[in-house]
């Protein structure tokens, strides 16, 4: 039973492609678990498809835009080339991709435990990226997107994460197991938002480790001069 969901505004912004790709990753992962939010998003998508792709307005706007844009007279010709290119794309390209997907390893392993990732995260996880461990907390970096850093976080059973505040924003989606903090107990699919006004000390219980996705503002990366020496400190886990 999922108790913590993204706000309606967040779902709307996800559906309309207005989120940063980091936040979108967290929302899409929640949707893999939550049929209620999925249904809501599907409804919004149908409305948006209507507005952007079907309504006559969207076309007249487009024609206006093209009329204004006389500097690019061949933009539709460019689309003609595009059509030819696509029609020449062999379907076997797609079949090769499918075979690759079938042979791809489908499980994640950490601390001698195996997990199956939700659909959204399967393609983001790179098995060759090393897990880093700090007193019962293991992290695996998925990537940095639009100033957000996405990590997989594995917390061993009976582990207390030291109390901490977030620089500005952290979203956690529980993937497996269970986690609790001052606000409550979280289960797979739960979507937890924390900002810099909140401190928390998450913990796992006995015999129940927790795997989650965290998306947070990426720490500053220094690329020049003496400030580079500070990088090890900005790359701590939180």
């Amino acid at each position, binding site marked *: 039973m999922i108790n913590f969901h993204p706000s309606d505004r967040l779902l709307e912004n996800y559906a*309309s492609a207005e989120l940063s790709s980091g936040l979108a990753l967290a929302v899409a992962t929640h949707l893999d678990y939550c049929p209620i939010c999925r249904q809501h998003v599907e409804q919004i*998508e149908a409305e*948006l498809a209507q507005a952007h792709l079907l309504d006559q307005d969207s076309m007249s*706007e487009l024609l206006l835009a093209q009329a204004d844009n006389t500097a690019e007279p061949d933009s539709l010709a460019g689309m003609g080339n595009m059509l030819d290119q696509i029609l020449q794309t062999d379907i076997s390209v797609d079949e090769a991709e499918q075979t690759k997907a*079938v042979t791809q*390893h489908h499980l994640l392993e950490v601390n001698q435990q195996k997990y199956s990732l939700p*659909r959204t995260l399967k*393609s983001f996880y790179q098995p060759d990226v090393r897990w880093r461990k700090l007193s019962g907390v293991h992290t695996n970096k998925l990537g940095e997107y639009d100033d957000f850093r996405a990590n997989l976080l594995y917390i061993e059973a009976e582990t207390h994460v030291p109390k901490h505040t977030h620089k500005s*924003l952290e979203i956690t989606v529980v993937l497996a197991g269970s986690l609790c903090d001052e606000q409550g107990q979280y289960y797979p699919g739960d979507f937890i938002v924390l900002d810099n006004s909140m401190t928390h000390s998450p913990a796992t219980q006995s015999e129940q480790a927790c795997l989650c996705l965290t998306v947070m503002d990426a720490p500053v990366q220094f690329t020049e001069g003496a400030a580079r020496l500070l990088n090890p400190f900005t790359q701590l886990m939180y």
Partner: protein
Amino acid sequence: MDILGQDSLNLKRQTNSIQTQMTESESPDWATLLHRVAEKRDKAAYTRLFNYFAPRLKSFGLKLLKQEALALEMVQETMLNVWLKAHLFNPEKGAASTWIYTIARNVRYDILRKISSKKEDNIAEELWPVIVESDDQESEFTELENLLLQGQLDNFYRFVPELQLEVIQLVYLDEKSHQEVAELLEIPLGTVKSRIRLGLIKLQQAMEQTV
């Protein structure tokens, strides 16, 4: 920052007349054209889809991405997916235009991700799951799969028919790929997939009955 608030006071759902909108405006039957592309690689059908949707996608892309080149990349990527993956469109789940919109939306996130990812991350070409799968139901079992992998479902194995349990154990405990299991047991890949699915449903039912 208030879009991140988790209370649902700010909801303004406009659920008015979505159903009617969806049926009345799909006047050229886009779903049928998609079906023809999937079944016969029908270039004429695809061309009609392209001529209608590509300019609209470009206009949508310009609004979102602001740059002509990026908008065109979004159109190309989206329409290529429509050509290659038309067989994944499921008309029972929604309108053709919604399916195409969703692909475009995911392509947009993929483009954003590529722009912002650092080069040294050495990422694959396309990571965002662009396609809305119709036949692949695997995500509904993620929670169950994880309980299974953690050994928390051993008590329920007795509720699963032998043939299904065999395949489930090979896939989840011995970590064989579906293809490897098919070869090992000399059964078709489709049978492997359906045995897994039926077995997982059995496990889920057994578990729910005891909770």
